[in-house]
């Protein structure tokens, strides 16, 4: 018989003001100390809604050392400063504006998100905070659409 799943010790990636009530946490029976951040994120989305969960997930998952690469299932073409992407498995099309294009071009196995963020700051004269917000939002979106792959740290 399998060991009962231990009680969740802490959900430390959720800021205090966004934590659900303790009673709700008890309903999360499938989580354990070894649960992945993705699994925590999915459970959190059920409890607090997808928008807040996305924000939390983004902040928790995307450290500056994270590395993402473009999926081999995606083909793309630059068009007048924008980029149009086609996901070959789903057949769905996407387009990126010039900022998104610059980020897309930077994603590679040898580039951390912190380095991408720095490049965005240099290119578009924005604050690091603003650049990180846009970058993390885009990368989360690209990841959700399976257009990028997260490399092991």
């Amino acid at each position: 018989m399998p060991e009962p799943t231990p009680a969740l010790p802490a959900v430390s990636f959720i800021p205090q003001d966004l934590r659900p009530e303790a009673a709700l946490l008890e309903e999360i029976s499938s989580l354990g100390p070894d649960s992945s951040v993705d699994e925590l994120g999915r459970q959190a989305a059920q409890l607090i809604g997808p928008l807040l969960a996305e924000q939390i997930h983004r902040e928790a998952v995307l450290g500056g050392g994270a590395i993402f690469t473009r999926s081999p299932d995606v083909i793309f073409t630059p068009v007048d400063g924008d980029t149009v992407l086609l996901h070959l498995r789903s057949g769905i099309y996407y387009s990126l504006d010039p900022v998104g294009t610059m980020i897309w071009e930077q994603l590679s196995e040898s580039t951390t998100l912190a380095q991408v963020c720095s490049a965005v700051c240099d290119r578009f004269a924005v604050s690091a905070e603003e650049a990180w917000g846009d970058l993390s939002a885009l990368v989360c979106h690209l990841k959700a659409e399976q257009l990028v792959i997260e490399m092991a740290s």
Partner: protein
Amino acid sequence: MTISLQFDIHGELLQLATESQAIVQAVGELLSPFACAVAAEDPRRPLELVVHTPAGADQLPELPAAAEHVSDGRGEGYRLYREGGSCLLDFRPVGLFRLDLGAGRLDSWLVDPQAMPPEQLDGLLRLAVIELLRLRGLYAIHAAALEKDGHGFLLAGPCGHGKTTACLALVRAGFRCLSDDHPLLRQTADGLELLPFLCDFNVTEKTIGFFDELQLARTRGRPGAHKQSFRVQEVFPAATARPCRPSFLIFPRIVDWPESHLEPLPRSRALEELLPESMLVLERELAGRQFQALAHLVQSAACYRLHFGENVLRLPAVLERLPALLPACA
């Protein structure tokens, strides 16, 4: 008894095999400009379209157990599967296609085609032909295509955006027509080539009402058809065009303004609008080649949104101004 017809479509041979007279007639009409007799010693390997006609949906082949469901065809009434080197498009209860990518062969099972609405049968056979041609680098674009003074004009977009009406207005004014619905695009070493695929025009009563010349279509109506059909060269004898380079890519949208207006369209937007109308992702390598050809098209052609106004017959004057706007080197 199996009946075989052969067609030469811009250098690619296509061979139909079927036992159904209804299919022979429908494919014969669809591909009539390309009908040919192929010499026995012709070294070209033909594309094969084999059409089986089971009497009922319960006689359609079962999907192979190994078939992997890929997508639901963007709500167009089929489910797409892959199995080994084949793609399956399941239109159950109407039919099933199995496209063998390596062999260049499409087997289709169409349930009782004689009982099928003519537009549905035409649409399914057209899709089968388009998917076969894609294997040889001939890409159908959902657009009307015309030529004038060596410039190719593509009017692209979904059904109901005025492509055929615009096409007729332009033909009437001296433009020549390559297709009102599915011209072919081919990437060559010298650039892109726009190729004719001229079928019968299918027009609504509203469109007929714009053109006195089209009263003929009213007398040729097919029973059960929502639209009336006619051959454009019967009405406008000088209407047919030869291959040309695509110079203008135009996306019409019907507006309730009196006159038509053109508005430059960003190329990325043009590609986004073109892709869903012209591309079905069946296989990676094929899709990649077609994607690049379409990207080349939007990069090499001038792209516009056409706000297609109520004064249909004044449209040619709007489009005739375009060549003068091209850079001198174009």
